């Protein structure tokens, strides 16, 4: 089948999609968007998290055909092409929250969503929001630091713009 949808603000289409394929597979293998990662393909690790119509989902659990006509935003679409890295991306690099980095794309999308909803999350809010994203390398401390840093930077920006 052919699937047409909006990926990171661009209309795209994928041909010859087999009906059993996941959104994750289609993004990675057919559209040249390998940023979303394939660590379990079972909805357990969060590495494949993308926005689907503005809500974070595990793309490994979404059938490719389901996104027909919808909007997908992946880690590749987080950065603003004008201003460079998004605050969350920059904070993960600065805080040392990236080691192997395999969990990073999914964590970035999930954190991005958290900070959209709650600009100043408490530590418990952060832990709750990110509890579906496994990271095997960092022990999560630096990830906590990164989210706090991104939150602080976002808050100071919104103060300036007010």
């Amino acid at each position, binding site marked *: 089948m052919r699937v047409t949808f909006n990926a990171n603000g661009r209309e795209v289409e994928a041909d010859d999609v087999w009906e059993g394929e996941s959104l994750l597979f289609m993004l990675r293998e057919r559209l040249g968007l390998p940023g979303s990662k394939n660590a379990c393909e079972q909805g357990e690790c969060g590495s494949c998290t993308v926005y689907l119509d503005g809500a974070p989902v595990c793309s490994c659990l979404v059938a490719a055909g389901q996104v027909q006509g919808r909007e997908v935003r992946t880690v590749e679409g987080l950065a603003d092409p004008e201003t460079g890295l998004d605050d969350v991306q920059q904070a993960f690099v600065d805080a040392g929250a990236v080691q192997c980095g395999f969990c990073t794309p999914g964590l970035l999308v999930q954190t991005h969503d958290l900070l959209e909803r709650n600009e100043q999350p408490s530590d418990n809010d952060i832990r709750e929001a990110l509890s579906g994203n496994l990271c*095997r390398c960092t022990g999560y401390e630096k990830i906590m630091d990164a989210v706090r840093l991104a939150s602080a930077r976002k808050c100071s920006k919104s103060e300036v713009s007010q």
Partner: protein
Amino acid sequence: MTTAHPDGIGGSPLRPDGILKVTGQFAYSSDMWHEDMLWGMALRSPHAHARILSVDTSEAVKHPGVYAVMTYDDIPGSKFYGLEIKDQPALATGKIRYHGEAIAIVAADHPETARRALAKIKVEYELLPTITTEEQCLDPETYGYVHTPDEYKGHASGNVVHSQKVVSGLGVTDEVRAMADVVIKGDYVVGMQDQAFLGPESGMAVPAEDGGIDLYIATQWLHVDREQIAPVLGLPENKVRLTLAGVGGAFGGREDLSMQIHACLLAQRTGKPVKIVYSREESFFGHVHRHPAKLTYETGATRDGKLVYCDARIVLDGGAYASASPAVVGNAASLGMGPYEIPNVNMLAVALYSNNPSCGAMRGFGAVQACFAYEAQMDKLAAELDMDPVELRQLNAVEQGSIMPTGQEIDSPAPVADLLRRVKALPLPAPLDTTHLDIREIPGALSNTSHGEGIVRGVGYAVGIKNVGFSEGFDDYSTARVRLEVIGGEPVAMVHTAMAEVGQGGVTVHGQIARTELGVERVTIHPANTEVGSAGSTSASRQTYMTGGAVKLAAEAVRNELLALGRKRYGWTYNDLSLVGGKVVSASAGVLVSIVDLLGDTVIDLTREHHHRPTVPFDKETGQGFGHVQYTFCAHRAVVDVDVELGLVKVVELAAAQDVGKALNPLSVVGQIQGGSTQGLGLAVMEEIIVKDGKVRNPSFTDYLIPTILDTPPQPVEVLELADEHAPYGLRGVGEAPTLSSTPAVVAAIRQATGLALNRVPVRPEHLTGTGES
């Protein structure tokens, strides 16, 4: 003659691959893509022990979209490979020895086509009784052999892969026992832990025009992969070229081959690029795990707490193939007494062949299992003597100059007592506030299973000792090439090594070293491949020591050549020259010339090898010998809340103190300590591959649990920097030590909270509620 540079050693510059990783541009091994590529996949045995009577691939070959189906008979070269003992068939023949062993491989145009083709392969098995318990393994006359003696590998010791004794002082005799006032005995069990790196085993093999193969691969050691791959393909090593593809974590699980040979065989056969990406389930079958262990300890001490003797036996289940078992045994035996002075020792460590999954390298490598047992013994002893457990440890702690049970003197700082003091001195977390309870802070967290009733808090301590680098006489070395040239009016250094960056941050450190030694700003890191000499493995906490050391040597050689050029051209006679800020500087005469002017069009490109000081194998009967290059130490304090009604544990805080010799990159060092500690926490309370009758029952992230951010507490870290004069910059390998003591510290805290004995890890709810066997 090193110079300060803000992004040099001791600073924390950002990772060179960080931006790529946060934007999704970094190419991991599962991201490889090629026009025209095929997908490879393996058929795996549903049985743990069986004879293969026949394999019929005729239907699979006919399946549309299938390009090749291969079995053992189609292998062009040698059929076996292995890290230390070549006992592992590239594809099974004759016999299946573990659940999930690969039997056949296919290449097809789509992963689903490959799956369907695999389903059409017919294999006839004759089931054999499994050999899975220690008793069965040690009695081959009754229960049989996992590998028939002298079958093909000249290994005639039955089901024993390797054993090592360590005897020191008077050993442990009745006379020695009589010298102790108190005797503590304990039997301990450590479950099978998985590395559970997130990036699945994957890569792409591309056939080359010269008949060779180019393999893009996530691994820990490119050269040793090649050494094992080339003979199976029937190719000379120079026709098998490996390039490191992005690695999504390793932790020892990529030290053995997984899909490498299969992808290469299929590419060779089809003439097309072949990509293989394991599913999570296949990943659990496709790599070796941490050895599960049974440990028996008897410790004697005087009334005032001085250790008199220790008698110990460690039995490691090595599974179907040897992998790194011999070296794991060496570590367990030689480090199995912990960082303590014990005058009389008798130790035996053994690894067995069985029909369980193969076990090999995992972070902590044999020292983890032992640490759980000897630290439990120390707590029991402290309780028996009515002593503070930290004081008891400090009283017996090794220090610089102490002699290990192997007879090796510890010839660099060993601040064991101080590390314990430091974790103990950290402020304790606030008590649980049951009046304003956020249920996300209590065990069971979000499931709303409790509102704080039945929760008790405990505090536990532990410390461990680990070696750095390869031991027992292995000539461990690494190679680095450093090139200095002027590009765009600026001096640029390039560093080329075959080091596998698996996430640990070696690429950052190499840049820091080059900047420090050459006084330049810009450093580029060449992709790691087999075009430069071996870097050895990214394991054993050795890469910064070994490859970092090689980069330092090569950079120093480049600097010396540059300065020689200057001496020749300008006739300098100073002997106080250094490179700072892109200039040649004399301490007495100031700036002499810029590197750019001195170098001009000249390119200096030099390669150096770094070998560590030699070690020797342990004596077979006594374990005596200078076997380890360097020792490293880490201590933990764990604070836990236990819901004794539900059997749930929440670690409230996990504090660590570690001596790193010299922190080349403090940010990364702390990140490594926290990550390692978390893996130990996982072993303490949740991580275990469940194997029953040789069958793996939980090969998924649904059933094999690793800590989430909700399971993981704040982790304060104290870093000590006591230089080791034998190591480059005085550094001490960092990555593994924190995985040792976090497990016993967490369990000690749970014991303190509950009063339960808890002699096995992981501790499961049924052990806490008394509803299961402990």
